């Protein structure tokens, strides 16, 4: 089974800063695995430990069941693509791509054949005799990819390979990269801080924060079932609204007290949640609602739970972001409805409702409550 990676309880500190805190990952053969998180979360360090560029303080790294923790990068059969491409500036594109093969003393004919193949695959066969500085950023990144591909390694490691490109090329190369990975079926570990990149590329995503893995899951799981407030907040744009509520009982049933308004629990969180909330978290809970899951109307409806004043309207073409103010609380709403047509202007009051099935409930520490 070529290309299986197992990271086992890896820890790494730089001076006093904990960069990677007990990270364990199991990446299977042919998988496109994304490490996602804000800058400084330890995702790049984790990747560099897998590459062998950084030594873990403790924990082990296995590739195809073999312990590679103490092996130098060259003996791990991994290829890496860097954010700034790291092409050899004194070599022509052809020699850049051929370098990993030359170093392995492959026969010249074989090298030429492989370089040609990979150059055609990536559409850089017409720039083989140029120097890297003569190429555009997109072309340079293709050369870096070619240099990684040409060796046919077990594993690709990619450290924000698209971050230095402008938006258009980035999105174009992104889909190309995905198609390429599916075609070659090589295990790929991809580091990014861009959630759109992570969601669109990954078979699975590990969301990291402060050196810890917050959640590992498919893009769908990460988006629709975040296991803590960090993931809920980090994924999605604008981020998930996290509202604090006190759970109280009254003759009317269970009431959620948001401070600015009180509401019957059933209107916001699912029935099964209500029971769990009462039994185990009778004190405080955190309610997470994605901006896209709000519904709103100009008049109260049976399901609306509060009203708020629209303070900012941001039209983004196909969608619109509303900022709604309820007392001291601000909520972001994303809608595809034409708010102008509805007659909503800044200053207008609207009534809000949600689909309780789409609401995430967390305990006061921020961990998801499951029922």
């Amino acid at each position, binding site marked *: 089974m070529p290309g299986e990676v197992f990271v086992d309880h890896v820890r790494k500190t730089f001076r006093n800063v904990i960069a990677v805190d007990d990270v364990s990952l199991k990446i299977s053969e042919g998988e496109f695995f994304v490490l996602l998180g804000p800058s400084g979360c330890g995702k790049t360090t984790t990747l560099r430990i897998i*590459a*062998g*560029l950084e030594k873990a303080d403790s924990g082990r790294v296995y590739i195809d069941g073999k312990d590679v923790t103490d092996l*130098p*990068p*060259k003996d791990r059969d*991994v*290829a*890496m693509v*860097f954010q*700034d491409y*790291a*092409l*050899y*500036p*004194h*070599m022509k594109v052809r020699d850049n791509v051929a*370098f*990993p093969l*030359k*170093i*392995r003393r492959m026969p010249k004919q074989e090298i030429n054949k492989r370089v040609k193949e990979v150059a055609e695959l990536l559409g850089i066969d017409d720039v083989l005799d140029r*120097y*890297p*500085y003569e190429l555009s950023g997109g072309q340079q990144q293709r050369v870096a990819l070619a*240099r990684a591909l040409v*060796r046919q390694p077990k594993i690709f*490691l990619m450290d924000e390979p698209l971050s230095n490109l402008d938006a258009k090329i980035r999105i174009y190369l992104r889909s190309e990269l995905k198609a390429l990975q599916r075609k070659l079926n090589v295990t790929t570990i991809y580091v990014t801080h861009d959630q759109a990149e992570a969601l669109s590329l990954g078979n699975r995503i590990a969301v990291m924060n402060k050196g810890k893995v917050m959640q590992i899951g498919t893009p769908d799981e990460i988006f629709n079932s975040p296991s803590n407030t960090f993931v809920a907040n980090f994924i999605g744009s604008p981020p998930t609204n996290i509202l604090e509520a006190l759970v109280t009982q009254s003759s009317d049933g269970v009431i959620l007290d948001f401070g600015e308004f009180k509401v019957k629990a059933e209107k916001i969180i699912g029935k099964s949640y209500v029971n769990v909330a009462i039994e185990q978290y009778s004190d405080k809970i955190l309610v997470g609602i994605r901006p896209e899951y709000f519904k709103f109307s100009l008049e109260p409806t049976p399901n609306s739970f509060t009203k708020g004043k629209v303070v900012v309207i941001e039209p983004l073409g196909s969608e619109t972001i509303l900022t709604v103010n309820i007392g001291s609380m601000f909520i972001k709403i994303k809608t595809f409805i034409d708010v102008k047509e509805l007659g909503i202007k800044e200053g207008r009051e609207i009534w809000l409702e949600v689909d309780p099935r789409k609401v995430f409930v967390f305990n006061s520490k921020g961990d998801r409550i499951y029922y």
Partner: protein
Amino acid sequence: MKARNVGIIMLIPALAIMLLFIVYPTALAIYYSFTDYNVVKGSINFIGASNFVKLLSDYKLINSITRTLMFMALAVSLSMVTGIVMAVLIYECMLGRKIFATLFILPLAIPYVIIGLAFKFMLSYDIGVINYFLEVIGIGRVPFFGKPDLALLATALVDSWPGSAFVFLVTLAGFESIPRRIVEAALIDGASSFRLYMHVLFPMIKRFLVIALLFRLLDSFKAFDHIYMMTAGGPGEATQYISIYITKTSFDYFNLGYACALAIVILLALSLLAQALIKMLGLQKLRTTGWR
């Protein structure tokens, strides 16, 4: 005041200094080189190109040039090798980097006269500390300044001390200018340390090495202070390198006209050497390639 005029005014001090200390003496030297100016006699007669004709058949000059070239070959290659080795060691070693780097650079801060004086005593046959140790370990005393070839070797060794410090400094600066990512890319691509240096690091610092070599060649060609301090050209004429020969001609034999003719020829030779090196090593090309 117009910006153009300000620029010219700003240039005046530098221009004045250059005129006074470079252009004027050079012009004077060119003039003297066509005379038989003798400092002691005080006579000065125009004698045309006969100084330059005499120069062609001056066996002392030929000897001096031969010895200079031998000295250069030794001193430059020694300093290039040790300088580069020291730079690689420091680049590889993370611990104590600053301390060792400072120690290696130190000789650059010492005036050549002092270096010459110090080594004159250290290498002395009777009272030298180096000969003392050589005797202690059983090799016996070596007359460094007593035999022609030993003297040449000794001067080359001493010259390569500050020389290698300079090469070290420039080479290390070259290594430090290489982005860490490139080194990492090469390591992941499968390069061993040896191949990393051969295929990536040294080619990338080529122009740094070229500059170091250029400076070393020029420096050793005109080496004077420390050599004069140690041997004053001796024994015999074994270390009478070109600069020492010129000095002796003008101040020991007072033949300033002839010395000036020598100096002019050397100046031309040096400029040609520098030009050739710059061309050969493709410094112009590197300038346009744009990589840092």
